[in-house]
């Protein structure tokens, strides 16, 4: 597929030319036909996002992150506590790819059929740009938070999550938690860009994901490490439940093809 920005520029140029030549209606007719073609071409990609597998994967990852944090509080102090926390982190990293693989193999292929997508230059460019941006943000955040983390780290080692709230959250704690909420809310919209028109109830989930982190800050004030487990637990649960409901809906509306008579 062509670059959509280049296509849009070309489209605007064509409209300008058509206006000069006094044939706008005809051009719009062609544009409409082209848009129909574009719609047909975009449809195959929708199956990877409309069955809720992405939401389940992302929700599971956040639930594992929360479990990892809570494990360090609930479990008694032992060498195993660290290993169990790491195990949960590993599960969190694997949740998304495993869910997408399972959805492709057990949900999409038996019902919709096999499809493989092209990974051209633009796909790799997108991946590399995303990685560079993510790395840049991570490094900037680490440098910004380093002085605060030095104070918080000893608290974390001594059951920071279970410990009573240590004063009011700082501005950076507020920013981080609100940022996590905002990021997850935007991601939720991206996951559901296609299906949210059909599933209006997803707007409620979107608002909950966006609004609840600041509410949790007020309910359980503390530092970032104290506030993040309940936020992760809540957001993971919303994502997971939303994904499960979407998957059930998808399975009900996309039955495997009936075997044909010999």
């Amino acid at each position, binding site marked *: 597929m062509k670059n959509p920005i280049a296509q849009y520029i070309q489209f605007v140029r064509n409209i300008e030319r058509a206006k000069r030549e006094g044939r706008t209606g*005809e051009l719009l007719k*062609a544009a409409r036909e082209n848009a129909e*073609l574009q719609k047909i071409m975009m*449809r*195959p990609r929708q199956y990877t996002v409309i069955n809720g597998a992405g939401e389940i994967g992302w929700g599971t990852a956040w639930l594992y992150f929360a479990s990892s944090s809570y494990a360090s509080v609930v479990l008694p102090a032992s060498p195993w506590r660290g290993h169990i926390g790491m195990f949960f982190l590993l599960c969190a990293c694997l949740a998304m790819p495993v869910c997408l693989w399972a959805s492709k193999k057990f949900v999409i292929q038996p019902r*919709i*059929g*096999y499809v*493989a997508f092209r*990974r051209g230059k633009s796909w790799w460019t997108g991946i590399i740009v995303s990685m560079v941006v993510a790395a840049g943000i991570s490094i900037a955040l680490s440098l910004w938070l380093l002085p605060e983390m030095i104070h918080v780290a000893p608290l974390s080692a001594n059951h920071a999550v279970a410990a009573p709230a240590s004063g009011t959250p700082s501005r950076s704690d507020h920013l981080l938690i609100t940022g996590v909420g905002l990021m997850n809310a935007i991601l939720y919209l991206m996951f559901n860009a296609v299906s949210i028109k059909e599933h209006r109830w997803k707007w409620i989930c979107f608002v909950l994901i966006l609004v609840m982190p600041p509410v949790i800050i007020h309910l359980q004030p503390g530092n970032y490490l104290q506030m993040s487990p309940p936020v992760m637990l809540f957001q993971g649960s919303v994502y997971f439940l939303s994904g499960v409901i979407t998957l059930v809906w998808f399975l009900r509306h996309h039955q495997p093809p009936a075997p044909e008579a010999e």
Partner: protein
Amino acid sequence: MNEQLRAISELDRVIHEPGRLMIVAVLAAVKECDFLFLRNETEMNKGNLSSHLSKLEAAGYVEIEKTYRGKVPMTLLRLTRKGRIAFDEYRKGLFAAF
């Protein structure tokens, strides 16, 4: 108007037929897919789809590969390079026609 008529007459007739246009549009968006996927996307019956695919294969636009997934037979379909170029040309021609 004459230019428009000429542009319309120059559109690739193999692709211009609505059924085949839909098939080529779906295949242009993916690397490869199987017969079941294409049937779901185009909502055609097996006979129609096979007939259109045969014409596209004869024109060298589509490559059809019979294979197996485990023990289940699977028909893999993909657009050839010639098919992609023809589809791009068709879309350009569509704009030029109006």
